[in-house]
């Protein structure tokens, strides 16, 4: 027995079978219930845990169809259109779902019908029914009005009007109902009676294509799993090739026999459908998982779905060396991204500013698009580099006296050459508070090492010593 605070009163939010047989009902104040049965065992409701549990159940249900939607706080809607025959027909499928959940210790009620509304109503009052298409009206008619899940005011109004079942309401003229309860009520009624359809909104994005494989005996071996992935990739590749498409994102869903579900996705820089590449990328990804794939007692279903696809022309001929090179680089980038994460394999792009640390950006190489800006050298021809090869993300404060010494990392360097200043003004339009301009100097020490230093805030004023920073080191 679970209670929660509703409208400033503790009310029952869930009751078990025994409690309901003793006359307790959801929504009853706890004080009333206590008065009826002083020996009640009461627990506080934990809504976040309920939501999590429902999501886990939804994960489990994913094995029947990828279109699973959450329905209120304790309901799930499964769109099984075109999937029932895979599980031995609608009745068998419904029984399997109910039995499967029951075996996991849940009290479950379910029904299968042409519309979500009808199924919802039937699940509550006629557990386990399967309604043939077009029979919704007949099946729903004898149910009480409460089955429509209307707001209490409307339910009460129907009762007062003497309409006790859905069938009686359906028997009235549409115009009458619309006039009394609004057009929405007519629409609800239509849905319940199977006269109109309403799409469900799956909780996960709908994959474009998917292939799956069921196993009579759960599989555990890593090699088997890889082989299955490869054969699924090959099957998916056929479909994609027929449509002239390639996948940018693939998701493998592993359904464990005990109900746990694991999803692992890989991303590709370019549309891909080559099974060998897909298998290789998954291998990289699975190898690199911080939390490895745990088969437990084995997986009884593996599904491979393409959740993002793009048009792809058929593979370029291998003779074309240039294009092939690009493809190979892209594959390498995908591989490294699968293993280390796409934020770790980077490419450089110009950024069109003269601020030294912002003059370029690093972007994930997988998603890098050719930049409109071009790289522009700062040095003139035959001139030495004017920007250092290595730069510090945070300029390091140093002690510097021009033409004398430089102290960095507690090491004293003798300065033999000093060139500058090169004044770089900050972009005033970017900062709210004006940033001081920087005077950059190129400094060489006695051993030939070259540093890039700057003085912040221009020349010294009022006797204050300017602060020097080391921003980079030249080759």
């Amino acid at each position, binding site marked *: 027995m679970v209670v929660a605070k509703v409208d400033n009163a503790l009310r029952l939010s869930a009751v078990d079978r025994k409690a309901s047989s003793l006359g307790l009902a959801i929504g009853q104040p706890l004080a009333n219930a206590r008065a009826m049965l002083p020996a009640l065992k009461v627990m506080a409701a934990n809504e976040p845990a309920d939501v999590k549990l429902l999501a886990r159940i939804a994960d489990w249900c994913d094995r029947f169809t990828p279109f699973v939607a959450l329905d209120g706080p304790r309901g799930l809607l499964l769109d099984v259109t075109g999937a029932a025959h895979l599980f031995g027909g609608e009745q068998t499928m419904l029984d399997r779902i109910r039995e499967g959940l029951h075996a996991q210790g849940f009290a479950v009620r379910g029904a299968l019908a042409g519309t979500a509304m009808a199924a919802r109503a039937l699940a509550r009052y006629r557990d386990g029914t399967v309604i043939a298409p077009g029979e919704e009206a007949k099946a729903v008619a004898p149910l009480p009005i409460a089955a429509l899940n209307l707001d209490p005011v409307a339910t009460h109004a129907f009762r007062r009007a003497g309409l006790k079942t859905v069938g009686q309401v359906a028997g009235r003229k549409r115009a009458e109902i619309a006039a009394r309860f609004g057009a929405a009520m007519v629409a609800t009624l239509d849905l319940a009676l199977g006269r109109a359809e309403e799409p469900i909104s799956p909780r996960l994005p709908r994959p474009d294509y998917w292939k799956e494989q069921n196993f009579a005996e759960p599989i555990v071996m890593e090699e088997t799993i890889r082989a299955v992935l490869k054969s699924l990739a090959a099957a998916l590749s056929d479909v994609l090739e027929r449509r002239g498409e390639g996948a940018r994102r693939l998701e493998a869903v592993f359904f464990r026999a005990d109900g746990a579900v694991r999803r692992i996705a890989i991303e590709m820089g370019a549309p891909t459908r080559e099974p060998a590449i897909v298998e290789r990328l998954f291998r990289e990804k699975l190898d690199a998982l911080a939390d490895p794939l745990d088969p437990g007692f084995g997986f009884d279903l593996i599904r491979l779905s393409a959740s993002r696809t793009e048009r792809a022309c058929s593979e370029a001929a291998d003779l074309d060396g240039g294009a092939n090179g690009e493809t190979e*680089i892209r594959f390498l980038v995908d591989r490294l991204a699968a293993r280390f994460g796409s934020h770790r394999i980077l490419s*450089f792009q110009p950024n069109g500013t003269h601020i030294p640390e912002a003059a370029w950006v690093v972007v994930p190489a997988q998603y890098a698009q050719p930049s409109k800006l071009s790289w522009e050298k700062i040095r003139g021809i035959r001139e030495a580099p004017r920007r250092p090869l290595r730069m510090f993300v945070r300029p390091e404060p140093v002690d510097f006296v021009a033409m004398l010494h430089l102290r960095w990392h507690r090491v004293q360097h003798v300065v033999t050459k000093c060139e500058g200043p090169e004044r770089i003004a900050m972009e005033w339009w970017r900062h709210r508070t004006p940033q001081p301009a920087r005077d950059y100097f190129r400094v060489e020490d006695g051993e030939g090492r070259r540093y890039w230093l700057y003085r912040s805030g221009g020349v010294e004023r009022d006797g204050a010593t300017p602060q020097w920073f080391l921003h980079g080191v030249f080759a």
Partner: protein
Amino acid sequence: MRAEKLAALRVSLVRPGLEEISTRIPLGHAAADLCLKGGLERGALHEIFAAIGHEAAATGFAAGLAMRVAARKHVLWIRQDFSALEFGELSAVGLLEFGLDPARMLLLCVADAADGLRAATDALSCAALGAVVIEIPGKPKILDLVASRRLTLACAQKSVTAFLLRFGAKPDASAAETRWLVRAASSPAREENWGHPVFETDLVRNRHGRPGHWVMEWNCDDGLFQNPTTNSGVVVPAPSDRPAAAAREGVESARRFMP
């Protein structure tokens, strides 16, 4: 039967065209190229050790070599997070100023040496890459003779060249083709012009030739190494006729580099 099998295996081992692939790329510096029998071997592992405090110079030397070898192909630069904090992040504009095309550079950031070596071995199987540079600070245990041999084999397979850029480490047993000790050299003593990058390089290991010691200048415009434009530093040509002396000198100079 057995002889036949052996013969078949031999044929499969000696792949046709292997000789043509493993060409040598001249550095541009005449004396060094002579010592290297024409240049740096492609599809092999080369080690570059930075003298303490000369990490940026070694970075430049490695970048120059990688650019020579890769020509117009992509270069993959593998760096560890620690290395970027300690010695500075590789700068795209810096590379551009140095003469490299940043658009042909891929940067892989890894957490440790094990990841770096693993990624390198994988990347070396991509024939479209020109060179792979692996920056390794310190002396990780994982980088041993076996690891370097593995890299060498991976290099040879698709003829991609690998450069191990070592910071703060002493040379150890390895399967590398060449080993360089690098430090910065003073630029020519002309006041008005800030010179090109100059390196004092020590070739302490050369599997197919003698060691040597040269001061090289990197020509950022033409992308090659050359003698410093004005001889400020001491240029020591490789004593080609005295192998023992050269070897001794190599060891000597190696010692000078050690902290």
